């Protein structure tokens, strides 16, 4: 049961969370309820991630997420610049914890080998719609050439880590935080690996004369 929390300005939130005694306590209770609501809001939109869990277990994960978010918010109060509502700023921490918990639950039983699996046929398999009927021969040939360039860049120009991250996230659609957890990294590092891989793919395509409009059109045509 949520009691109606007091409406506060940004300044009141900061002052009361930094106060002591009953004032701080009341602000923390209200903040925790708001963070729990944000976690549950995310969970309620991503229930598919919790397929195997009972309701009580999901609610407990929400409580845990709210508590972790509360600690994070309290530790980062000095980072709040006042360029948004305080609650929107605080919700970021709750939503971040909620997303990580949900994705972790969804992927927990999948092995690393399954997530990073790739062989020579992976890209061909991945692009097999390529062979769909109705394409003019020259269009089909150009699609094949794009596929070949992508394959070459992935095989020869990416580092092992870039290739692994790309295969996991693009081919197998593994979420960022699960890749982070499996590779014992952080979001920034994984994002950078994908960014570098995209840069190499872009250069590879452009070096062979495939500019953006033409290439997109090649693949967005009905086929």
């Amino acid at each position, binding site marked *: 049961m949520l009691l109606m929390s007091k409406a506060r300005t940004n300044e009141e939130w900061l002052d009361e969370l930094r106060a002591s005694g009953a004032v701080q306590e009341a602000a923390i209770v209200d903040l925790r309820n708001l963070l729990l*609501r944000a976690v549950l809001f995310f969970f309620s939109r991503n229930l598919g991630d919790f397929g195997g869990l009972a309701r009580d277990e999901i609610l407990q994960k929400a409580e845990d997420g709210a508590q972790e978010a509360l600690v994070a918010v309290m530790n980062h109060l000095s980072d709040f610049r006042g360029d948004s509502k305080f609650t929107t700023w605080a919700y970021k921490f709750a939503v971040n914890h909620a997303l990580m918990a949900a994705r972790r639950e969804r992927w927990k039983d999948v092995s690393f080998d399954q997530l990073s699996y790739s062989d020579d046929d992976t890209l061909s398999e991945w692009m097999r719609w390529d062979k769909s009927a109705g394409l003019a021969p020259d269009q089909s040939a150009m699609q094949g050439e794009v596929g070949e360039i992508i394959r070459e860049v992935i095989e020869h120009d990416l580092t092992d880590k870039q290739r692994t991250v790309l295969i996991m996230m693009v081919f197998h659609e593994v979420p960022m935080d699960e890749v982070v957890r499996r590779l014992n990294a952080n979001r920034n590092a994984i994002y950078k690996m994908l960014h570098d891989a*995209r840069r190499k793919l872009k250069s590879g395509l452009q070096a062979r004369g495939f500019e953006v409009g033409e290439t997109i059109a090649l693949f967005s045509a009905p086929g």
Partner: protein
Amino acid sequence: MERSRFENWLRNIYETQDEEISCTECFDLVSHFVELEAAGENAAAKMPQLKQHLEQCRACHDEYETLRDLRRLEDEGGAPSLDDLQDLIR
């Protein structure tokens, strides 16, 4: 693999910039972005690097969408209560 997903991936490749902001920078800035949108401003024009990151990073984009929708519901007075949300969990 659906063709549309491959097409989106190709777009992501071509929209790659030499310099892109990190997930940490995105996290730091996204509440301001949501605030600008809530105020009816052109957040994407004011914060193009953040917008670009959101288009490239699914995790950050999912978080952004949740923040945006929470903010919108609160503004409209329609944010679900804790009880309502707990009831939604099977």
